[in-house]
């Protein structure tokens, strides 16, 4: 095949002399052959028009139509089918190939069945893919301030031969000094012994003609360079070479710079990824905690339901207090549609700041108490309407708790009242009660569990627990059916500022600096714990602990640190918060101490000191006590060690808080509700459609949060 020899060079060998090509190039553009060849092209195109779409077009059409079925492999396969070397017979039977392909065929045959490798297929396959990718408009120089050398310049600068000029120059500078035996020295130091010293001189290539000029006979020591003569031409050449080398160095330097910049960018990107991953990790941790809580709740539920089915009664005892309950609660499905972090309901509660609030369950019943208002309001959270009011106290209600239908309130009159929220009725009816102020003691036994007396036949309600007449009565008073007040617990001589009940145990704390434990079933005061005594007799391990300047005797009153809006009040609640669990009781008091009591002995067995202002709120679980104080901080204590586990600082005094394993939500003297994520340690604030004055109290269950502010409104949030 004579054709193969000329063609093989270009197509596969790649060694056709460049001049050859140049000539061809020149001739084709000048000679009439160019025109004829283009005519030939046209002819061949015409002839094979129906087959011309063979490669690109058909595949492109196919890929456009069904990109899914045209995998790159398939495309490559199809694309190379036509180009695959075949027997010449095949190609003649299939005239679908154009002349160029036909021309290529014999050379491939001539080379002796060179097979198309898979790599080659891959390369051809990627070609179309690469062509499809966008070509950025920015030239490489635009990216950095410093121009980036082109790849070719980089190649020239870094390729090994770039150093050849330097090596050559160095060689020209070698002088024919008297034999020093340098090679032997170097070998000797490396522990090698060269046996023939003769092989030494071939290392140094010195211009031969200079060797003659060197004064060989001179014995005296002289500079090595003294007798060296290069000649103008050589020196000029070296100058040029050095200039080029410097340029190369410059190129290499900028290459390294751009590499460093690239690595820096990559590190930054990786840092970003790492931060993202760490966040994901925290999120997982949070999810795990949530699952733990959910599991607890499910197990609790299981226990409850099995005990119910065993006993057969559907009205089993209350599940443990809602304050201790963890995990999800039952929410209407619509709750999920609410945007999280937005207050979706507002309840107007008169004109004075909210002093206390609690609710039975999400979308259940809410009781709110306001300053200078002795009658807490009862709300239906489903409709957002006020159902009625709890009338009976004669002072501001400072503390209250709601569990299911039972509500306990403590007021500045020193009384604690128990209410059945099912019996709360509209205002119209209850406003009459004050008039029918008769038959106080007469119906003491009528413990209205029948619920029949809703009519006006036996409307008997205990009026205000007046300071005079009522004190003479027994400590507990049983109310008759229609009134929501079930019991009045009297005993504290001053304002009740904190209370907590679980099952039948109620603990109250009052400004008379005592804590009292009550039995809700009987209404008896079981125990009185004197805080003053505890302060003066601190547990041995703790160095005496009350705030400096705090006087044990007399009334407790400290000015609050101002709220975010600048307003402030005199803080008088000596006992800011209590919580109990079985025999354990924790109190937070005005001396800044968090005390842990044993209700079997009535002794404070441990005092957690750290707060520098009155403790206003606290909550504890199996592991931690979390307390908020007017010293503008929330402290998380470790119950086992008694040390501070974490301190969260705020800008203003903390007045209320609640926490679970994942977060601490608190009222921090600002308009927004503060949320602290315990896993990611991030703070966030709820303020969308929020309060217009600082938040005072709050309480949440699962993803349902209520907050009461100094703007006399209660906001309901979806978390």
């Amino acid at each position, binding site marked *: 095949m004579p054709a193969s020899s000329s063609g093989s060079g270009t197509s596969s060998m790649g060694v056709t002399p460049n001049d050859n090509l140049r000539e061809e190039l020149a001739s084709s553009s000048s000679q009439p052959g160019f025109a004829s060849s283009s005519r030939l092209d046209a002819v061949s195109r015409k002839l094979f028009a129906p087959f011309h779409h063979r490669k690109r077009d058909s595949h492109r059409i196919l890929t456009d139509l069904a990109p899914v079925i045209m995998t790159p492999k398939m495309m490559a396969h199809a694309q190379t089918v036509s180009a695959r070397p075949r027997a010449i017979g095949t190609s003649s039977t299939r005239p679908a190939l*154009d*002349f160029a392909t036909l*021309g*290529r065929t014999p050379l491939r045959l001539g080379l002796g069945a060179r097979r198309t490798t898979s790599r080659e297929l891959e*390369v051809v396959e990627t070609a179309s893919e690469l062509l499809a990718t966008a*070509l*950025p408009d920015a030239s490489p120089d635009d990216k950095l301030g410093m121009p980036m050398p082109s*790849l*070719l310049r980089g190649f020239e600068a870094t390729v090994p031969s770039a150093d050849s000029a330097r090596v050559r120059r160095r060689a020209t500078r070698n002088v024919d000094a008297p034999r020093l035996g340098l090679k032997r020295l170097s070998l000797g130091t490396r522990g090698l012994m060269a046996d023939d010293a003769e092989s030494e001189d071939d290392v140094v290539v010195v211009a031969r003609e200079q060797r003659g000029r060197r004064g060989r006979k001179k014995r005296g020591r002289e500079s090595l360079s003294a007798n060296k003569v290069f000649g103008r031409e050589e020196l000029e050449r070296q100058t040029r070479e050095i200039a080029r080398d410097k340029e190369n160095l410059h190129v290499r330097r900028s290459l390294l710079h751009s*590499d460093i910049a690239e690595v820096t960018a990559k590190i930054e990107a990786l840092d970003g990824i790492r931060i993202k991953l760490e966040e994901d990790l925290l999120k997982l941790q949070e999810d795990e905690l949530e699952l733990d809580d959910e599991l607890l709740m499910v197990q609790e539920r299981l226990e409850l339901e099995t005990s119910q089915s065993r006993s057969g009664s559907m009205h089993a005892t209350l599940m443990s207090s809602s304050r201790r309950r963890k995990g999800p609660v039952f929410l209407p499905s619509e709750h999920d549609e609410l945007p999280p972090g937005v207050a979706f309901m507002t309840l107007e509660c008169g004109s004075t700041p909210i002093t206390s609030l609690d609710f039975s369950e999400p979308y259940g019943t809410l009781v709110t108490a306001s300053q200078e208002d002795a009658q807490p309001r009862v709300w239906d959270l489903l409709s957002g309407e006020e159902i009625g009011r709890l009338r009976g106290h004669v002072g501001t209600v400072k503390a209250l708790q709601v569990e299911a239908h039972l509500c306990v309130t403590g007021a500045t009159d020193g009384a604690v009242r128990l209410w059945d929220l099912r019996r709360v009725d509209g205002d119209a009816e209850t406003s009459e009660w004050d008039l029918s102020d008769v038959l106080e003691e007469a119906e003491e036994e009528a413990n209205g569990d029948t619920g029949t007396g809703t009519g006006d036949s036996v409307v008997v309600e205990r009026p205000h627990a007046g300071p005079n007449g009522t004190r003479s009565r027994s400590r507990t008073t049983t109310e008759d059916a229609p009134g929501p007040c079930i019991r009045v617990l009297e005993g504290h001589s001053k304002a009740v500022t904190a209370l907590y009940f679980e099952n039948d145990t109620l603990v109250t704390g009052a400004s008379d600096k005592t804590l009292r434990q009550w039995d809700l079933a009987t209404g008896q005061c079981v125990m009185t714990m004197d805080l003053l005594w505890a302060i003066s007799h601190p547990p041995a391990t703790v160095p005496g602990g009350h705030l400096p300047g705090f006087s044990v005797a007399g009334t407790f009153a400290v000015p609050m640190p101002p709220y975010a809006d600048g307003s402030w009040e005199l803080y008088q609640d000596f006992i800011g918060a209590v919580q109990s669990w079985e025999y354990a009781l924790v109190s937070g008091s005005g001396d800044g101490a968090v005390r842990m009591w044993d209700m079997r002995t009535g002794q404070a067995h441990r005092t957690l000191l750290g707060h520098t202002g009155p403790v206003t709120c606290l909550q504890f679980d199996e592991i931690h006590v979390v307390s908020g104080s007017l010293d503008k901080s929330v402290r998380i204590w470790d119950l086992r060690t008694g040390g501070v586990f974490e301190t969260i600082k705020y800008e203003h005094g903390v007045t209320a808080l609640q926490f679970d394993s994942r977060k601490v939500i608190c009222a921090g003297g600002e308009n927004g509700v503060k949320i602290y994520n315990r896993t990611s340690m991030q703070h966030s604030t709820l303020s969308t459609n929020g309060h217009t004055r600082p938040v005072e109290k709050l309480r949440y269950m699962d993803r349902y949060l209520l907050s009461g502010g100094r703007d006399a409104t209660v906001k309901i949030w979806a978390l």
Partner: protein
Amino acid sequence: MKIAEVPYAADAKVSLSYDELQVLRTQYEKEVAQTHVTTQTKFNYAWGLVKSPVREHQVEGVQLLADIYRSEPTRRRECLYYLALGHYKMGNYDEAKSFNSRLLEREPANLQAQSLDILIDQAVKREGYIGMAIAGGAAAVGTLLLAGLVRRAARK
């Protein structure tokens, strides 16, 4: 707009010495082992491979160039030319042509690309001539045979 600085096609025909290519390869493999390959090293090796007369080398070189093309958007324009050259050397004129024309779209004034374009056209044409010659030869042989047969048939 700046025109990419690229060598003439003739440069691609001058192959590196074995040692030089070996140095480039070692450098590249060292960086691969370190899992950070700089573009320049990759290109050096790829360009060395493309310059090589061994077809396997050329293929590998083009693959590396395609890699660079994919990962370095700022180098794409330069790479287009080298890809075109690589394919041209491999004899994949269709690919070479499309890469080169893609570059010419952006840089119509690029002399190197212009000359490569002409070179590719010539190579295609030459193959066309060969093809025609073969086809012609086959046709002639066919005609002769046919004529012989006809004559033989006529003689009978």
